[in-house]
C-alpha cells in the first residue's frame, strides 16, 4: 500500500514538474571558435541537468528548446565548456576557447565522465596520433605514447602480433596483455591485422584498479578502450579521403659479416671450406687444394641479405562518409591496404568496411548505436622464422649464407640433392622461395549494439550486445619438385611434398545489461550508481587436413587435384578437428560520489565466475575504492599559478582467469585427470594418460595501489601527471618442479607472488604558445615509466627456480656461468667459479650464478618535440628503453661460431681470434680445448637499451582560404618516418625484439608520404 502511494506521488510530481517547465521556447544561435571566429560544426549544446541536447550544424548553428532560467552548456572536444543561462533573448551566440587541458573526457568502467570528476588513472590517445601511420596494426603505433604502456613488436611480418604490457609483467604463465574493447566489444588481443587503424577516433588506456576493477575477470592487466569514428546529428555529408604510400627497408646491423674474399681467406687459414679446397658446396667443390690469393680475389661476392630482404612498398587508402539527420547519424568507411614485408614472400592485403550508426527517439529517451566492421585480409607469412632449419628459415639464409655462392649457382631442387652440403644453404632457401606457399586468409567481423532508455531523468537502463567473429584459413604447400620434398621423399618416394589446409573459427558474444542512477542533490552532491550483469560465451572450431604426396602434373597450391591416395604406408593424410567452448559470468555494481567537483569517491564490487575453475574455485570477488581531491578547485588556490591540481588514490583487486596465457580457450579444464585415445605402439590406437589435474586451481589475483597527481600551471602551459603504483600478483600460476618419480617433472599450480612497482610520468610543456593561430608553436613532452619486478614465495625450499628467478629478485633473472675472456696463454675460454676464481673448467652446474639481469625493461617511454607554423607541422617521437639484457645469439650462435667455418658466413671479428701465446683478444682459439664445453654462459649477453627516432612526421595543412572554390574543406600532405635512427650498443638488426632467439624477422624502417582530403 505504501509502495503504491509512493509511485502515485512520483507520477504526480513528474506531472507537476512538466507542467511547471512547460514555458519552453526555441533558442537558436551560432557557435564559433574564439581563435579564428569560424563556425564550429558538431559542437554539443545541452540543457544542464536534462537529457535534452542538440548539435551545431555545418555552419555552427543550433536550435534547442529551453525555458527561461535553464542553463545551456556548450561543449566541444578540445574546447572549454561555456555555460549560458537562458533569459528573455531567443538567440545565444557563443565563442569557445581552446582548452589546453586535453583529455576532457575519460572513459571509466562502462561509461564516460569528465576528467575533473574522475578519480582513476587513465590516458587518452586521440585519432591525431594514430592516423596515417604506416603500421598495419594500430597497436604498434601506440608504442611510447602512454606512460607505462610497453609495446614490443618482435616481428617485421606485416600485421604481426605485438606484445602489449601495461606497467610491467603481472604473470609468469598467464595472460599479461590488457583487455581490448572496441565499441563495447571485447576482442582478441593478439590479432589486429585485419582492422583499419584509420577508423579509430580515440583510445583510452585504463591503468589503475579504480578504472579496471569493473572489468574484473579480464581487466587485471589494464583495459584499452577503443572508440571508432561516428557521424554527428544534423550534419551534412562529409567525405574524407586519406592515403599514403610507404617504403619499408631493413634496419642496419653491426656484425661485420665477412666478404667472400675475407671468408675464403679465413677458411683457408682454418683448413676447412671452399677456401681450403675441401668444400662439397657449389663453389670450388672438393678440389683438394687451397685457393690461391688470385683465385680468392676472383671469387664472386654476393650479398644474400639484400637478396632475401627487399624494399617493401605499402599503399593504404581510406575513404569515409559521414552524415546525420535530426535523429540518426552514420559513419561509413572503406579501406584498402597492401603492405609488402621487407622479407620476400611476406605481405598483407586487407579490405575493410565499417558502418557505425547512432540514433535516438525524438523525445530523446531512447538512444541506440550500432557498430559493425567487416574485414578480409590475406597475408603471405613464411614460417620456420627463428628456427635453425637451413632449408626453411629465409632469415637464416639472409644472415649467414656464404657470399661466394650466388643465385647463378641455382638450377633446381633436384640439382642440390647431391652432394648435399650445408654450404648450399642459400640455394636451398632460394628453392624454397620458388616452391613453397604459405598464406593465411582471414575474415574478421566485430559488431556491437548499444541501447539505452532513460526511465527518468536520473535512471537509465542500458544494454550492450557485442560479438567478435574471426575465421582464419591457412593454406600451405610444398611443391613435389622442391628440394625439400625430393630430399625427404628420397628415391622411394619421388612424389613427396605436402599440402595443408586448416581453418580456425572463433566466435565470442558479450552482453552487459545495466541500470544506472545519476542524480545531483542540492547542486553539489552528485551520486552515480550502476548495477550490472555481464555474460560471455565463446566458441572455437577448427578442422583441417595435412595431405602427404602430391603429383607434380596437377599440383597447384590450395587445389586438391594433386593429392595422391595412400599406398604402401606412404601418402597418409592426417585430418584434424577440435571443438572448445568458453564462458564467463559476472554481476557487479559501482558507486560514485562527487562533492562540488572538489572531492570524490568511487567504489566497485564484482562477483565473477569462470568456466576454467568449474572443478575447483569457480567464483571470486574483486573490488576497488578510489578517491580524489581537486585541490585547484579550493578557494585557497584562487590566484595561484595552478589552474589544475588534483590528487587521487586508488586500491583494488582484479582477477586473471587466463592463467595459462592461451587466450579464451587455453587450459579449459586443468582441474581434471584425463586419458586420451591416441596413437600408440606401432601406430595402433591406445589409451594413454594425457593430463594430471590440479584440483586447487584458482584465479590469479592482482591488487593494485595507485597514487597520482594531475597538474596544470600557467594556463596549462606546463601540464602533466605523476603516478606511483604497486601491483601485487598472488596465487601465481606457475610451473612447480616435481620429482620425476611422479611421472612428470613439473606441474603448474597457484603459488608465489610477483610485484611490479614503478612510476609513470607524463609532462608536456608549450615552449612557444602563439596568440596568432599562424604563429610558431613549439611544445615538448616526456613520457616515462620505470618498473621493477620482484618475486616472492617461490614454490621450493631454496626460493629460487632457474629460468624464473629467486625470492626478492627480478622476474626471469638470468642464471648462468660468467665468462671473463680468453686466456692469453693458450686461447682457451675463461670463466668464473661461483666464488669468483678464474677457471678454464667451471662446474656447469654449481658455478652458475644469478646475474641480476633480465629481458624486461626498467625504463621505457618517449620524448617528443612538436612544431607548428603557418600550417606546417613537424612531429617527432623518440622512444627509449633501458634495462633490457639479451643474448645476442645471431652473433654468438652464428657469426662467431668457429665450428661453422666452411659452412656459413662469419663475422670478420674472427680475424682477432687467438693464435699465439701472449695474445690478448676477445675471440678464443678455434682449437681451444673447452670451446664446446660450456654452451651456456653470459659470453654473449648484451645490453639492448636503445634510443630510437621512432616516429617523425612533417607536413602542411592548406589554409582554408586556399581551398575556396576547390570543393575541398580540408587538405593536408605529410611525410612520415618510422624507426628512422637508432642509437644502441646492440649489434643486431633490431634492439627492440623481446626475445633471446636468433634468426628472427626484424621490424623495418619505414618512410611514407600521404595526403588527407576532406570534401
Amino acid at each position, binding site marked *: 500500500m505504501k509502495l503504491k502511494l509512493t509511485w502515485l506521488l512520483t507520477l504526480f510530481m513528474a506531472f507537476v514538474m512538466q507542467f511547471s517547465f512547460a514555458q519552453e521556447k526555441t533558442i537558436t544561435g551560432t557557435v564559433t571558435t574564439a581563435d579564428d571566429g569560424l563556425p564550429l560544426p558538431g559542437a554539443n549544446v545541452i540543457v544542464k541537468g536534462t537529457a535534452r541536447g542538440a548539435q551545431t550544424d555545418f555552419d555552427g548553428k543550433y536550435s534547442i528548446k529551453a525555458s527561461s532560467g535553464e542553463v545551456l552548456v556548450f561543449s566541444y572536444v578540445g574546447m572549454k565548456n561555456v555555460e549560458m543561462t537562458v533569459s528573455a533573448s531567443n538567440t545565444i551566440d557563443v565563442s569557445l576557447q581552446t582548452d589546453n587541458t586535453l583529455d576532457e573526457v575519460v572513459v571509466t568502467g562502462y561509461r564516460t565522465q569528465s576528467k575533473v570528476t574522475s578519480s582513476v588513472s587513465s590516458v587518452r590517445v586521440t585519432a591525431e596520433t594514430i592516423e596515417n601511420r604506416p603500421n598495419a596494426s594500430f597497436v604498434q603505433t601506440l608504442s611510447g605514447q602512454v606512460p607505462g604502456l610497453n609495446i614490443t613488436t618482435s616481428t617485421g611480418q606485416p600485421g604481426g602480433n605485438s606484445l602489449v604490457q601495461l606497467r610491467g609483467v603481472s604473470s609468469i604463465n598467464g595472460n599479461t596483455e590488457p583487455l581490448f574493447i572496441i565499441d563495447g566489444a571485447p576482442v582478441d588481443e593478439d590479432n589486429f591485422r585485419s582492422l583499419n587503424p584509420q577508423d579509430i577516433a580515440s583510445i583510452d588506456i585504463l591503468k589503475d584498479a579504480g578504472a579496471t576493477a569493473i572489468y574484473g575477470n579480464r581487466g587485471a592487466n589494464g583495459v584499452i578502450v577503443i572508440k571508432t569514428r561516428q557521424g554527428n546529428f544534423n550534419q551534412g555529408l562529409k567525405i574524407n579521403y586519406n592515403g599514403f604510400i610507404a617504403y619499408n627497408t631493413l634496419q642496419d646491423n653491426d656484425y661485420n659479416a665477412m666478404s667472400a674474399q675475407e671468408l675464403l681467406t679465413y677458411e683457408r687459414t682454418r683448413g676447412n671450406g671452399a677456401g681450403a679446397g675441401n668444400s662439397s658446396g657449389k663453389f670450388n667443390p672438393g678440389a683438394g687444394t687451397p685457393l690461391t690469393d688470385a683465385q680468392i680475389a676472383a671469387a664472386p661476392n654476393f650479398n644474400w641479405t639484400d637478396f632475401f630482404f627487399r624494399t617493401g612498398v605499402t599503399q593504404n587508402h581510406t575513404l569515409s562518409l559521414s552524415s546525420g539527420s535530426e535523429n540518426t547519424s552514420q559513419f561509413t568507411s572503406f579501406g584498402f591496404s597492401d603492405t609488402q614485408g621487407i622479407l620476400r614472400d611476406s605481405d598483407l592485403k586487407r579490405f575493410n568496411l565499417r558502418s557505425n550508426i547512432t540514433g535516438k527517439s525524438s523525445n530523446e529517451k531512447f538512444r541506440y548505436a550500432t557498430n559493425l566492421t567487416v574485414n578480409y585480409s590475406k597475408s603471405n607469412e613464411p614460417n620456420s622464422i627463428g628456427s635453425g632449419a637451413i632449408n626453411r628459415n629465409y632469415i637464416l639464409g639472409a644472415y649467414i649464407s656464404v657470399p661466394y655462392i650466388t643465385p647463378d649457382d641455382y638450377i633446381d631442387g633436384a640439382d642440390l640433392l647431391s652432394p648435399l652440403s*650445408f654450404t648450399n644453404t642459400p640455394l636451398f632457401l632460394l628453392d624454397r622461395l620458388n616452391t613453397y606457399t604459405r598464406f593465411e586468409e582471414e575474415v574478421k567481423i566485430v559488431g556491437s549494439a548499444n541501447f539505452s532508455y532513460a526511465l527518468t531523468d536520473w535512471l537509465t537502463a542500458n544494454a550492450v550486445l557485442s560479438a567478435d567473429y574471426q575465421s582464419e584459413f591457412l593454406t600451405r604447400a610444398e611443391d613435389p619438385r622442391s628440394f625439400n620434398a625430393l630430399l625427404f621423399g628420397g628415391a*622411394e618416394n619421388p612424389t613427396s611434398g605436402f599440402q595443408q589446409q586448416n581453418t580456425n573459427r572463433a566466435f565470442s558474444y558479450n552482453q552487459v545489461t545495466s541500470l544506472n542512477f545519476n542524480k545531483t542533490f542540492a547542486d553539489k552532491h552528485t551520486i552515480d550508481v550502476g548495477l550490472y550483469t555481464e555474460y*560471455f560465451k565463446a566458441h572455437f572450431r577448427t578442422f583441417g587436413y595435412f595431405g602427404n604426396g602430391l603429383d607434380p602434373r596437377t599440383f597447384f597450391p590450395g587445389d586438391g587435384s594433386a593429392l595422391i591416395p595412400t599406398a604402401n604406408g606412404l601418402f597418409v593424410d592426417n585430418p584434424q578437428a577440435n571443438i572448445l567452448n568458453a*564462458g564467463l559470468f559476472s554481476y557487479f555494481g559501482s558507486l560514485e560520489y562527487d562533492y562540488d567537483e572538489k572531492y570524490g569517491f568511487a567504489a566497485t564490487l564484482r562477483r565473477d565466475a569462470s568456466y576454467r575453475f568449474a572443478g575447483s574455485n569457480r567464483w571470486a570477488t574483486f573490488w576497488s575504492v578510489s578517491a580524489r581531491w581537486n585541490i585547484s578547485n579550493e578557494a585557497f588556490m584562487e590566484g595561484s599559478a595552478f589552474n589544475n591540481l588534483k590528487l587521487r588514490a586508488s586500491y583494488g583487486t582484479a582477477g586473471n582467469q587466463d592463467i595459462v596465457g592461451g587466450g579464451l580457450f587455453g587450459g579449459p579444464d586443468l582441474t581434471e585427470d584425463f586419458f586420451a585415445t591416441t*596413437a600408440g*605402439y606401432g601406430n595402433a590406437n591406445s589409451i594413454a594418460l594425457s593430463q594430471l589435474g590440479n584440483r586447487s586451481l584458482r584465479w590469479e589475483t592482482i591488487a593494485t595501489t595507485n597514487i597520482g597527481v594531475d597538474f596544470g600551471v600557467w594556463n596549462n602551459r606546463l601540464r602533466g601527471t605523476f603516478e606511483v603504483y604497486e601491483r601485487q600478483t598472488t596465487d601465481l600460476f606457475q610451473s612447480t618442479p616435481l620429482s620425476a618419480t611422479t611421472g612428470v617433472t613439473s606441474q603448474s599450480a597457484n603459488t608465489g607472488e610477483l610485484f611490479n612497482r614503478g612510476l609513470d610520468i607524463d609532462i608536456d610543456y608549450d615552449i612557444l604558445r602563439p596568440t596568432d593561430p599562424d604563429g610558431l608553436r613549439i611544445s615538448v613532452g616526456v613520457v616515462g615509466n620505470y618498473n621493477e619486478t620482484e618475486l616472492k614465495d617461490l614454490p621450493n625450499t631454496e626460493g629460487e627456480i632457474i629460468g624464473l628467478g629467486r625470492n626478492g629478485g627480478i622476474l626471469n633473472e638470468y642464471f648462468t656461468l660468467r665468462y671473463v675472456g680468453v686466456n692469453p696463454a693458450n686461447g682457451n675460454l675463461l670463466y668464473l667459479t661461483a666464488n669468483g676464481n678464474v677457471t678454464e673448467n667451471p662446474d*656447469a652446474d654449481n658455478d652458475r650464478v644469478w646475474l641480476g639481469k633480465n629481458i624486461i625493461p626498467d625504463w621505457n617511454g618517449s620524448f617528443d618535440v612538436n612544431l607548428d607554423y603557418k600550417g606546417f607541422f613537424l612531429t617527432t617521437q623518440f622512444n627509449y628503453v633501458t634495462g633490457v639484457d639479451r643474448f645476442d645469439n645471431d652473433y654468438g650462435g652464428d657469426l662467431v661460431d668457429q665450428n661453422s667455418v666452411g659452412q656459413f658466413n662469419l663475422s670478420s671479428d674472427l680475424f682477432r681470434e687467438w693464435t699465439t701465446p701472449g695474445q690478448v683478444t676477445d675471440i678464443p682459439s678455434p682449437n681451444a680445448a673447452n670451446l664446446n664445453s660450456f654452451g651456456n654462459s653470459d659470453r654473449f649477453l648484451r645490453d639492448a637499451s636503445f634510443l630510437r627516432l621512432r616516429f617523425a612526421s612533417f607536413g602542411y595543412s592548406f589554409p582554408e582560404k586556399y581551398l575556396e572554390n576547390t570543393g575541398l574543406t580540408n587538405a593536408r600532405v605529410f611525410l612520415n618516418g618510422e624507426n628512422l635512427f637508432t642509437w644502441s650498443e646492440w649489434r643486431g638488426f633490431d634492439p627492440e625484439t623481446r626475445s633471446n632467439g636468433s634468426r628472427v624477422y626484424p621490424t623495418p624502417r619505414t618512410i611514407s608520404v600521404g595526403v588527407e582530403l576532406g570534401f
Partner: protein
Amino acid sequence: MKKFNKILFVGLLAVLMGCNDAIDIRQPGRLDAANAFGNVEDLELGVLALYNQMDVTPKISMAANFTDEIAIGFDSGGQGIALYDFVLNAGSTAASDFWVRNFRVNNRCTILIEAAANITPDASEQDAYDNALAQAYFIRAYANFELLLYFSPDPRDDSALAAPVIDFVAPLSIQPLRNTTGELWDYINADIATASTLSTVQSDPLFISRDAINALRARMAATRGDYPTAETLAGNLVASYPLASTVNYQLMFLDASNAEVIFKLERTQNDSYDGQGATGSVSAGGWAGAIFAFVDATLDGSPYFEMDRSVFNLLDPSDIRYTVNVAPTSVINPNYDTDPDPVNTDKLVIQKYPGSEGQPLMNDLKVFRSAEMLLIQAEARAAQNNLGGAAQLVKQLRDARFGSPQALPSYGSIADAFADILQERKIELCYEGHRYEDLKRIGPAANVGIERDNTDCTTQSGACTLSATDFRFTLPIPIVEINANPAIGGQQNPGY
C-alpha cells in the same frame, strides 16, 4: 514505467538463471580417468600406450656419441660435440633423459597395474588380462633396470646408491631419496617374477613374451655378476633362436626378417617416433638412423656422425657385418692416417639403420637378439674360468657372420677373454646401444676403455681415450630432479 521495471527485473533474473551455460562447460572428447580402464580391452589398449613409452634410441645415441663408435662427420653442424668431448654433468641431456624417461615409464605402468586391480575379468578374458599385466610388469622392470644401469655406480654392489624405488603412484609432493642398488634389484626382480608368472606367450618378435622376459633376466644376471644364471638363461635362448644366416642377418636390419630377434620395438610410418627428432641429442626420440645422419644412410644423406675408424678397422670386408654397417657410398681412404684432410677424404657412412617401409633411417629397434645372448653366454663362461668354452662360442658367432669356419680364438686369462668378447660385441652390437653399458660392466676387468681412432679424435679437440673406471660411466642425478627434490642433490654420484 513500473511495468518496464518488472520486465527488466524478469530479464535480469533470466540472465542470472541462464548463466550456468557459460560457466559449467564440459569440453567434448574428454576421457575421464575414472572411465578410462573399465574392461580388459581398455587394459590392452593401455598396454599399447606403455609400449609406446619404450625407446632404446637414447642408449643407442649415448653409446655411439660418448664411446668409440662414431667420429664427427664431414657434414657435421656441431651435433653432439659436447658429449663427444666427454662433457657430462648434471645439466646434460643424457642425465635428464635416462632419469625422467624411465621414471615416466615406471609411473605409467604403475597407473595401469593399479587400474587393472579394479577389473574382474571373465574366465574367457583371464589370459588376455594376465598377459596385459605381464607386459606392464615387464616394461616397468625394463625401465627400472635402465635406471640401475645408468645411475648406480656399481650394479654389483648392493650397498651402492641407485635410484629411488617407486612401486606406487607417487603423490605430487614426493621428494624421495635414493635407494640402494640391492633394494632396486629387489623391485626389478619382483616385477620380472610377476611378469614371468603371468605371461601367456612363449615367443613374439614384436611383443613381450616369456622369451623376452628370459632375455632380460639373462642380461640382468650378467650385469649383477650372477654368471651361472646368465649362462643358463642365455644358453636356452640361443638354442631356441639360432644365429641368423648371412642373408637373413642382412634382411634383419632391413626389417625383412626376424631370424634371430627375440624382441624388437616396431617403428612404423606415422607412429609417434616417425620423424627426425632432435639430431645430436641423446633425447632425440625419432628414427634410429637420425642419430647418425639427417636425411638417409648414404654419403648424400648428410651424415653428421661417421663410423669411427676403430670400428671400421675391425670389420673384415668378407664379414657380413661390414656389408650391414658400412654404406657402399662411403669414401674409403686407406691412407687416412697420413692424409692432411682425413675429414673430407675418408668418409665412412653408417648404414645400420638404412630405413624400412620406404622411410629412410626408420627401422625397428632390436632390443634382444640371440647374438647378444650368445655373447652373454660366452662372457659367463669366461667369468667362470671356462675360457675354452667361451672361445668356442665366439668362434660360433664369427662362423655365422663370415658364413665360413673361422679360427678358434684362445684366451690366456679371463681378462683376455673379456677383451676379445668386448671387441666382438663392439662390431656385432655396434650402434645398438650396448658399448657404454659393456665398458662399464667388464671394461675394467678386461682393461679396456674408450679407445677412439687417433686420426678421428685429433681432428676434433683431442678427446681420444677414457678409462672404463672413469666416473662418467655413471650418470649424474640430473638438475631437473635436484630442482624439485633438493635433498637428493646431497646424494650426487661421485665425480660430479
